[in-house]
């Protein structure tokens, strides 16, 4: 395994109901350091399941997932140690509603990384300033708009200094006029060299920011390649059909 491979997925399968539902049916791929891998595909095709398998929020039925060279599907491994290096952003933000924005961001650094409160807060304020939300530090999540919540969710994950960021449809629950501000933050993150895996329906983002695109349908990795190759010259009929519907 070459040194710059950060995540390797080997023949991962995820079955429900004793194999009657195959959410993932043998997917293998790699994510290299600095890459922005965009995962597209029809609903129920396994995109989110694959992404959630990467930090084991979804336990694969079989197959292996290596993160920085370690097999994290090994039951003996302490998954918490690896999850702290994988930031995750959810469709529904999942901010903690009973904590202020600042507390949302400092909880894990102080509990997991054992940072001092001052240190964690300084870092959180710096990150909030980067997404233009420093004046919301002492507000509660309910007081923020969807776009603001998602930006907070992104910097909350960044507070842990992750090696890779996982995005699970980060703009799907947003009002259309707020999609831009979230994509902008993600784009900035990509420019700074963050390794990212993004499940999204934003084809514009996939085309502009993605270094590689994976097309998942029926639990299988149907096609992968550069955005140009995927969008301009799709090979498989399944992808052609999908693109003809979403691009119009």
């Amino acid at each position, binding site marked *: 395994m070459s040194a710059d491979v950060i995540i390797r997925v080997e023949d991962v399968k995820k079955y429900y109901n004793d194999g009657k539902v195959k959410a993932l049916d043998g997917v293998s791929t790699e994510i290299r350091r600095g890459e922005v891998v965009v995962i597209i595909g029809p609903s129920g095709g396994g995109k989110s399941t694959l992404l959630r398998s990467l930090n084991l*929020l979804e336990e694969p039925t079989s197959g292996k997932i290596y993160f920085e060279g370690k097999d994290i599907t090994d*039951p003996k491994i302490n998954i*918490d140690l690896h999850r*702290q290096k994988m930031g995750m952003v*959810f469709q529904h933000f*999942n901010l903690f*509603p009973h904590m202020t924005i600042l507390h949302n961001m400092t909880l894990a650094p102080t509990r997991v990384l054992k940072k001092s409160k001052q240190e964690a807060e300084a870092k959180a304020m710096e990150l909030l300033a980067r997404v233009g939300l420093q004046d919301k530090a002492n507000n*509660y999540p309910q007081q923020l708009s969807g776009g603001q919540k998602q930006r907070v969710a992104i910097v*909350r*994950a960044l507070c842990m200094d992750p090696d890779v960021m996982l995005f699970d449809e980060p703009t799907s629950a947003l009002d259309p006029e707020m999609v831009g501000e979230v994509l902008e933050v993600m784009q900035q993150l990509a420019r700074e060299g963050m390794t990212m895996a993004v499940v999204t329906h934003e084809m514009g983002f996939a085309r502009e920011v993605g270094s590689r695109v994976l097309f998942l349908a029926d639990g299988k990795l149907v096609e992968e390649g550069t955005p140009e190759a995927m969008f301009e010259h799709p090979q498989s009929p399944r992808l052609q059909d999908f693109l003809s519907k979403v691009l119009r």
Partner: protein
Amino acid sequence: MAEAYALWKAMSSAGEEITVWQSIFVKFYQAFIEADRWLQYLEGMATTLYVTVIAILIGIVLGVIVASIRTAHDQQRRRKSVVLGVLDFICKVYVTIVRGTPMMVQLMILGFVIFKSSRNFTMVGALGLGLNSGAYVAEIIRGGLMSLDQGQSEAGRSLGLGYLDTMRFIVVPQAFKAVLPALGNEFIILLKDTSLLTVIGGKELVHAAQGIMNRTWEQMYPLFGISVLYLVMVMILSWLQGKLERRLRQSER
């Protein structure tokens, strides 16, 4: 007052006519004031409150333990732990038995069978109520834990927080707010159920009223009296609960 009572009571027992108001006064006086009977009500009320507090404490401790075991058992995703499986089974049996049999029968079994040589039936009763309440509290807490959006604990775990930290800082504080109305309801029911202690000889408020009824041959005034006392206690309890709920909500505004 004492002279008026003595006079009118004597007239009434001699078969002489007294007015309605005089009759009310006589009965009220003999139910509450004669021989300092109000003290017996107060003592009964103190015991009722004391038993309630002990039972609530037992109920909370038991409920939290049982709910934790059952939730941890249901939420484990990797290898199933055998120890948790056994504990979960015990908890299920406990909840089923407690919820499936009448509280009065449970109290009688505790008082007349298991602790029949005990002389402190008030404490036996408190234990019984606590054991009973624990099962309901466990189900209330478990419901609160389960009702919380799965995304909350996923967000915690994805940040690298362990199961216990995620529970402690993210799930439990939110679940607590959600279960407070149901818990308050449970404790109000518990307070009133202390009256069942009378059947095994607990010396609480109903016991006090019964003693006075037996002595004075008058039922209405003692029963109305203790009803008012129960009502006052419950109203204070629900006022406290409302206050706590408001304070918890404030933190989000």
